[in-house]
């Protein structure tokens, strides 16, 4: 059996900012369990001494001259925005109730599920 519980999936959905109905959570829990059970075999072959590969080809950092290139006008950048005002993206309230004490940018505890 899989170690993934419905509560886990609920937490993951919160982290991923996807609102899910009860039925979706049920279905996702069982599907995720099957998938994870099948892919976790990778651990068998991943020995201690094997170096990880994050990228198919060796990469080096890329630098360029610090010059101004093409930039979009505010109008172009906002053309597909769901909402805008005064040449800016308009965003719903970013602080929910009870968050007021948290200084902006400070790390938040994740354990509130």
């Amino acid at each position, binding site marked *: 059996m899989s170690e993934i519980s419905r509560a886990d999936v609920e937490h993951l959905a919160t982290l*991923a900012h996807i*609102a899910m109905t009860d039925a979706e959570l049920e279905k996702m829990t069982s599907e995720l369990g099957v998938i*994870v059970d099948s*892919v976790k075999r990778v651990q068998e072959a*991943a020995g201690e001494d*094997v170096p990880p*590969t994050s*990228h198919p080809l060796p990469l080096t950092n890329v630098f360029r001259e610090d010059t101004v290139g093409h930039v979009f006008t505010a109008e172009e950048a906002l053309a597909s925005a*769901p909402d805008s005002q005064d040449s800016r993206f308009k965003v719903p*309230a970013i602080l929910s109730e009870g968050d007021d004490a948290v200084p902006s940018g400070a790390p938040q505890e994740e354990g509130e599920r």
Partner: protein
Amino acid sequence: MALTTDALIRLTAAEMAAKLRTGEITSVELTQAHLDRIAAVDDTIHAFLHVAADEALETAASVDALRAAGGAEAESLHPLAGVPIAIKDLIVTKGQPTTAGSKMLKGWMSPYDATVVEKVRAARMPILGKTNLDEFAMGSSTEHSAYGPTRNPWDITRIPGGSGGGSAAAVAAFEAPLALGTDTGGSIRQPGAVTGTVGTKPTYGGVSRYGAIAMASSLDQIGPVARTVEDAALLHEVIAGYDKKDSTSLSETEYPEGKIPTFSSAASTKTAAGLRIGVIKQLQGEGYQSGVLARFHEALDQLRQAGAEIVEVDCPSFDYALGAYYLIMPSEASSNLARYDGVRYGTRVVPEEGPLTIERVMGATRAAGFGEEVKRRIILGTYALSAGYYDAYYGSAQKIRTLIQQDFDAAFEQADVLISPTSPTVAFPLWEKLDDPLAMYLNDIATIPANLAGIPGISVPGGLSEGLPVGIQFLAPAKEDARVYHAAGALEQLLNDTYDAPLWAQIPALEEVTR
């Protein structure tokens, strides 16, 4: 004698280009023939999400005018100028909507062109429109498109493969001679296999990914879709090359530009003599349909008789490739898709009740904007990357990636190219696997290793099983894309000689199937 519309659309891209250059046909005529074909069959096939008739005809007219005027400008036209093309709707285009097959981007207009689109425009190839795909390229059947599935022109009750089922079906159904696709785990090659077309996944970094909507950035690659190996090579030459806007693009020193024009000449070699071909032990047998294996073994026999040396190579880590892929890809996708937050572009859904905070708007937006498979992969990726599981899952998968690269390195000591069936099955009926994600994932079992290792691969038609196309895959070492064109061109020629015609000439007439 003027060619009929029907004859025009059945030419290869290379033949179209030649007739355009000699003035036997015009680009407007050719483009209109394809637009007519789209109008006639696309209600049934549903390969296109957007058709750009006016823009395509405008480009075509500009090519015709330049050719008619003659002189230096006509001389400097790209060899494929005037040959129409379709673009997978994962690749952004200015002036045409880009949806990624998702409700999240319904009606979104990109303010810029992908680099490959710029190159296609510079070559003056008329863009017919944008092709259907599984949402955000996640799937192997095009059933996960928010705009409905594409149907396989060989049998409209079956899937055209995915995620690039729209591009493959458009080319198979003569709605376009060429198309662009993207391949993260097989999304160019597997649709190629099940629609009897040719599709190439180039070396990672060999074609700019700037403007390809990201799924898994260490795996994604743009490539060509065509009906012949030569046509695929010609289109690959249009889009290849370094791009400073893509920091994972291979530089001139890493991948000399001089190698690019060799693709089409390699495709035209058409000889298997002296080629060392490695049969991958792990990519055959259990799970592969007997009809697929029968065509595969016939291909091996043909290549052997034509003078190729066939050897068996052992790649034991491939048994773990699917598992590693379904950890790495969702992990990268969960991060890439975090950008769809309902703020800067795309859909915003406001919850009907409760406080209007950004968190709740994001939750509602992503709940409504993403389909089931996308949600599944985001949640899976979020899980694989979460504290406590990272080493066991993502970390282990990265180690498998190393082992797979080592297996390929050893295999390419023994062989110039490797060969396998592209897909374990022929096209399956629509809806058959939609509720079984694991069964769906198995479609890509033979194509995934190339993405994990960043090497080039091609799928070329290998005949029919039960009246449906079977694909043969060739793989080559990184930056040796020319080799897959050489091998695939040789096999294509052998099979054309055997069957006395290209496979796609056998496709049922859609008018008969559908009306």
